[in-house]
């Protein structure tokens, strides 16, 4: 298995510039192994989708890229993750800076129970922006980038929890891009939304891809085909197959991948 992984990885290393590189990455939660020896490259300015049945480790891998797994008790990470050449699990890495560069959007939209404006400003203030003109500029630009500006420009000071589910999720995206990350990690960002709101989020992802490198976890295979350039299929903590989305869905090399993408299990 790991032989194919390395071959896969080697193939793609030639083609595009890899931004995130993992080598033999394993994660244990206490006695439970969540990820087993993952080696893969994520390319810059592409949308990479992680698919697989629940509990296959796709979210765990995503959370390795901004070290959110560190927050869980008894988690043990071995192997290597480099982003832009930096080994992010080395002790001298500043996790705050890492998370500033690697933004994240969660499955359940989680705006702070503050005003829309305050939500966007939260990250900016954390990173030292104080000037109110600049702050307001960034509020506008990031809401525009998240395609939310027109809907909320007249009520920036109302509580973010009054927004609809889809709007809340786009606010979370705006909040993440306000601090100018390079990479956006999205953990099933549309799983709790209705089809219309989902379509808006997908549309947004396609426009954001010009500026950001996006890694998205999804259990919706149509979504993966619609928005991603590359797809990785995980099963029981292992990377089964990784390649161009087109190829994975039309011509999977692995039997398990085929069973999954054709809907036979999962």
């Amino acid at each position, binding site marked *: 298995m790991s032989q194919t992984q390395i071959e896969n990885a080697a193939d793609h290393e030639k083609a595009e510039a890899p931004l995130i590189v993992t080598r033999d990455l394993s994660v244990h939660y206490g006695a439970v192994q969540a990820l087993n020896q993952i080696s893969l490259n994520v390319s810059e300015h592409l949308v990479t989708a992680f698919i697989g049945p629940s509990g296959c480790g796709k979210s765990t891998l995503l959370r390795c890229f901004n070290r*959110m797994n560190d927050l869980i*008790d008894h988690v043990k990470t071995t192997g290597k993750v480099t982003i832009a050449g930096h080994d992010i699990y080395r002790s001298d890495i500043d996790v*705050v800076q890492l*998370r500033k560069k690697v933004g994240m959007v969660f499955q359940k939209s989680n705006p702070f*129970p503050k005003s829309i404006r305050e939500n966007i400003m939260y990250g900016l203030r*954390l990173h030292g922006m104080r000037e109110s003109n600049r702050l307001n500029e960034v509020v506008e630009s990031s809401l525009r980038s998240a395609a939310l500006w027109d809907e909320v420009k007249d009520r920036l000071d109302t509580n973010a929890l009054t927004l609809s589910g889809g709007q809340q999720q786009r606010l*979370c995206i705006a909040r*993440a891009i306000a601090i100018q990350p390079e990479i956006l990690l999205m953990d099933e960002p549309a799983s709790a939304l209705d089809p219309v709101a989902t379509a808006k989020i997908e549309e947004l992802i396609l426009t954001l891809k010009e500026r950001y490198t996006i890694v998205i976890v999804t259990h919706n295979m149509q979504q993966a085909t619609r928005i991603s350039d590359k797809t990785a299929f995980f099963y029981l903590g292992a990377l089964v197959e990784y390649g161009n989305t087109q190829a994975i869905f039309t011509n999977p090399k692995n039997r398990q991948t085929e069973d999954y993408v054709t809907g036979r299990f999962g």
Partner: protein
Amino acid sequence: MAFATAIILAFAAVILSNILWQGWEAFSWRFITSRADQNMFDSQQAGVLQMIAGTSARVVLMTIFVMPIGVITAIYLTEYARKDSLLTNLIQSAVNNLAGVPSIVFGLFGLGFFVNFIGGNLDLILRPEQAAPYWRNPALIWASLTLAVMTLPVVIVSTEEALKAIPPGLREASMALGATRLETVIRIVIPQALPGIMTGGVLAVGRAAGEVAPILFTGAAYYMSGYPSHLTDQFMDLGYHIFILSTQSPDIEGTRSILYATVITLLLLTFTLNLLTILMRARIRTKLRTFH
């Protein structure tokens, strides 16, 4: 089963109606705004202003001592501690244990530790020349500290509850934006938990306001003229005054009316505080319901 419930409510009703019935005449604006100088057993003139002042002072001081320690401990337990480590369990069982210590034992502890040990050492260090003890006396500060130790578990448990009610997603969102744990605690967790933390504070005050046993040897005075003005002063106390009027009155029939009126004063104080916590909790609950 419904009968058992009815018995409880009947008892509560009998006690409260008896107190109100017998006490409402003597309970007046004059009563709660006049002092009891030289005449604390005089049913026509005595008031309870000193006792209200004393009880309020010890409760306010207690709040100042107990809140920071209680809230920080709860923050450690919910935000920082590993949930299954030995030390976390030890702290948790210490909290449980503290909650079960009888109030008279807190009184003994207050006398042995705060008055004699801390007070005695303060006298040695700050006033080595004087023979008469200054700090090593029952005092407002020692009573408040004793009560603070007693109410520590109340504050810790209710703050923990408030912190646990905050959706974990908010903490994740904050950390994912590059906030440190401390920044997350200060900017997200504490503001969100504030109503719950305040409820804990009011609960602690309600619990401490009526306690007599812990202050018997650590600061309550049988009688003193005027108000406590220093941390080392003793104080008169509503609950202790009820005890005195019930057991040491020279003329129990003659002082009955002021005894009842004092009971009403104390009940009014504790019930207001309790009602406040119940209302605050209900509000927080409905707020949480709408946000999830």
